[in-house]
């Protein structure tokens, strides 16, 4: 029982991070109707930025996160301006391929700057270990949960009260109406990319603290897609619920089934894809997504 609860708790922390990555994806999708396959690459960049600011520059954690967000905002704006804006009005495939290609370029740039080696800053993040009876909550999990909650609250406030957040929600609803109300849609697109990039980078810093950073870390993006599909592709609340669900399920399944499988298992890596296939076959629009009705 202790083993099970331990798996659930670490899974919960992991799930919060997945949810965070998925939120970045959903924000871009809702605002600009672009499927951003490169969300995992943002996470990877975030991990490396965390390494640079925490280890190389010896910044305190809050300053490192702020600095990383600064870089992320510039990066998001550049990406939107250079690669996505020329494609406004193009087919979905073109946009998806563009984000894939952009992700490849980001991986290349990360390899160029950081050498593509495995880097770790384990222990640099503050260590607070909580004990609940026999259960211990690892510090990274705790930080993950705290940061994720803070980010979600900030985003909620932004979308509910700030003018720009309201404009973004309006854009998600109807672009033409928004334009006639005097809001510049391209600016909204740019801001959605900046926010998504920042959220990705923050989750990258958390994940980097848990498991270290390398270029292949971008594969975590795939887990975020499983989260997005499970939660419903256009629902931020769904992303949070599904993220936690997937994190816990994955951790529990891997914890119990991996010893039974030949070749050492590695179930955690394919688990999201199994979820993707099941969700797509049974409930393509996810738990909280809107069902699309199409006309000719």
């Amino acid at each position: 029982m202790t083993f099970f609860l331990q798996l659930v708790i670490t899974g919960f922390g992991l799930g919060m991070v997945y949810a965070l990555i998925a939120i970045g994806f959903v924000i871009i999708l809702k605002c600009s109707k672009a499927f951003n396959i490169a969300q995992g690459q943002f996470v990877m960049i975030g991990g490396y930025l965390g390494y640079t600011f925490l280890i190389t520059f010896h910044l305190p954690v809050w300053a490192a996160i702020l600095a990383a967000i600064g870089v992320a905002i510039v990066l998001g704006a550049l990406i939107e301006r250079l690669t996505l804006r020329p494609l406004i009005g193009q087919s979905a495939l073109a946009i998806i391929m563009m984000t894939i290609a952009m992700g490849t370029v980001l991986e290349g740039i990360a390899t160029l700057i950081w050498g593509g080696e495995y880097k770790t800053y384990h222990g640099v993040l503050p260590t607070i270990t909580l004990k609940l009876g026999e259960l211990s909550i690892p510090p990274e999990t705790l930080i993950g949960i705290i940061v994720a909650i803070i980010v979600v609250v900030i985003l909620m406030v932004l979308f509910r009260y700030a003018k720009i957040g309201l404009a973004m929600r309006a854009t998600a609803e109807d672009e033409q109406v928004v334009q006639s109300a005097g809001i510049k849609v391209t600016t909204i697109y740019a801001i959605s990319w900046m926010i998504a990039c920042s959220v990705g980078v923050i989750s990258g810093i958390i994940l980097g603290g848990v498991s270290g950073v390398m270029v292949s870390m971008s594969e975590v993006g795939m887990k975020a897609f499983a989260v997005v599909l499970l939660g419903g592709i256009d629902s931020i609340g769904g992303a949070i619920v599904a993220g936690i669900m997937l994190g816990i399920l994955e951790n529990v399944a891997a914890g119990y089934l991996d010893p039974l499988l030949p070749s050492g298992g590695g179930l955690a890596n394919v688990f999201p894809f199994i979820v993707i296939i099941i969700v797509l076959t049974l409930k393509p629009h996810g738990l909280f997504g809107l069902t699309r009705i199409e006309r000719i």
Partner: protein
Amino acid sequence: MTLPSGVFQESYAKDMAVLRTKTQWVLLLAFLLLLFTIPLYATPRVLTLSTFIGISVISVLGLNILTGYCGQISLGHAGFMAVGGYVAAVLAAKLGWPFWATLPCAGLSAGLVGIIFGLPSLKIKGFYLIMATVAAQFIIIWLILQFRGITGGTDGISVPRPEIFGFVIKSKSSYFLLVLIIACLATYFTKNLVRTRVGRAFIAIRDNDLAAEVMGVNLLRYKLLAFFIGCVYAGVAGALLVNYFAFADTQMFPFSDSIWYLGMLIVGGMGSTTGAIFGAVSLKLLDEAMTIGGPALAAAFPAIAAQAAASLSLIMRGLIIIIFLIFEPRGLVHRWELVKTYFRRWPFAF
């Protein structure tokens, strides 16, 4: 139209022919002659490159049927290649089947796996379908690694040299000719497939699947057929790849290759057989240029030497797709048509 002036067809069959003038026949035969004589004057390196180009052409032709004609985007093409490759490898190595039997089996099994993962395509499309095919790629590779007893897991599996009716294909040139023949057959089949009822149904589904259904196109049947045919090509290409190395390993079918095949399709031009071939050839040549250019670049900038070669390939691959998406979304084949039209109409611009 794409014909020179003064060409008149007198029968319906002539009007439907792919090659309609004597010049086209002569050019095609000359081109084929050039291809089949490559082993006579090519260096081993060029021959290896040409073999890989041939294999990619087969694979991308399949992806073109699935994505370019039927509109079902697949990011799991390397996974389907892995199915074909491993089926060929296991049948040849464990059961001792001859090459002429393993190749069709590889194609068929990849096609069947394609049907399984294509099943969700009836309900979903666009991004959802892409994720289903990405899932296919990773699940296939994981399953191959799990069935250690059959596939050798991470150690890979050795494959005996292919043998056709007593003739063992050992040399590079004979293997190149084998790949070339299959690539030519694949091209011929694709070119004609898309002109049939099935091909037109694919195009109707791509342009608007709801409208196609209203017109009486059976969506499930034709989408699965597209998955089947596209994955048969992938399976054959995978089997050829495995037989070339005489070794099968999951590292030979990475996810990045799936992306790269789609990139070839975009660079070449979607929904065009010529485009698929253009894309495969040009991007394989680009890859080769990067394997040569990478070390040169590393020598030029010793400060970033270790990373330069690895990152150059990634950055170039991404950039080339970005550039084509922004500046030439219709691909190289569109340029090629423009050039051809220019010369046909010369000296007039219209």
